């Protein structure tokens, strides 16, 4: 199954569970300026009121140029994705999670291989989805497992871009042990503090400190399989 998945690629999630028990339709789209403009006007102010969130103070208006324009020319192949709720009747797309990743960096567990690296990943707090002017979402219709779905976007990109699932990230210190454990529950391995990062400026400026996490190929395939019911 794993070999087949690596060979044929994987579609992104198309549904998300809700408290009502019914799934809601979602779409993974290329991140665009209109997505981040809406996010920065409506979602980020709510995130910024919570100093405990790792994404407090982020500014997606600064990140999108790399995904939208510069991604074509940069060696590390940045890519940006928006996970959004679909309302086809009213032609509305409600961004619920944003993911900015680098498509080509050395893998943490095998420096000769290439991996995807998650640079920024953020999910909308419930309040941001229930307070949309003219388009409030009912509490029991809020998509759940958004963090898992957003992380799966990176793994899916890795599978489809011939990185065979290898995906890494740095767990922000502000997220503390809770964030590290969250990534661990999703099958990621923490790079031991004594292990060296791949050659590059990061090895000197931000050496391994026990907060770099990565998916091995088997772990990525397993995590990807777990989300199949939502594809």
């Amino acid at each position, binding site marked *: 199954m794993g070999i087949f998945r690596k*060979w*044929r*690629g*994987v*579609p*992104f999630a198309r549904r998300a569970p809700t408290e009502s028990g019914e799934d809601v339709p979602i*779409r*993974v*789209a*290329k991140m*665009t*300026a*209109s*997505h981040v403009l*809406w996010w*920065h*006007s*409506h979602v*980020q*102010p709510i995130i910024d009121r919570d100093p405990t969130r*790792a*994404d407090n*103070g982020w*500014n997606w*208006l*600064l990140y999108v*140029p*790399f995904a939208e*324009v*510069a991604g074509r*020319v*940069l*060696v590390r192949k940045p890519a940006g*994705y*928006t996970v959004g709720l679909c*309302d*086809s009747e009213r*032609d*509305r*797309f*409600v*961004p619920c999670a944003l993911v900015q990743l*680098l498509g080509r960096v050395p893998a943490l567990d095998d420096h000769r291989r290439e991996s995807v690296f*998650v*640079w*920024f*990943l953020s999910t909308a707090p419930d309040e941001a989805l229930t307070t*949309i002017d*003219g*388009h409030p979402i009912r509490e029991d219709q809020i998509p759940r497992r958004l963090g898992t779905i957003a992380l799966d976007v990176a793994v899916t990109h890795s599978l*489809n871009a011939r990185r065979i699932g290898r995906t890494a990230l*740095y*767990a*922000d*210190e502000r997220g503390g042990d809770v964030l590290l454990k969250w990534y661990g529950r999703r099958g990621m391995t923490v790079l031991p503090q004594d292990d060296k990062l791949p050659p590059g*400026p*990061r090895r000197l*400026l*931000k050496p391994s400190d026990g*907060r770099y996490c990565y998916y091995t190929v088997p772990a990525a395939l397993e995590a990807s399989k777990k989300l199949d019911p939502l594809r």
Partner: protein
Amino acid sequence: MPTPTAAFADAAAKYGDVDPEDIEAVQKWFAEELPMLPPEAIERIFDDLLARDGDSELREIVPVYPDRARLPSLSSSPPIAAPLLAEPWKRILSRLFGRL
């Protein structure tokens, strides 16, 4: 994750002569000026930003939020195409030969 906002402001100041305290000017530079630069310059800026990935925020940049941006439309947010072989075979055949 991630590179702090201050690092983006510093990059705009270094490469675009923008006031790093003026976050709206920094945003405008990244959105409008950065894509016009030659690829080598963008690569250098990108390297600078990645080198500061995981930095603790050195100074606070007061955010400015756009006013009442419109909710994006579904039609302008097309889904990312799945690899052809990952699609169910019925859908692939429908695409190739029309409705079955």
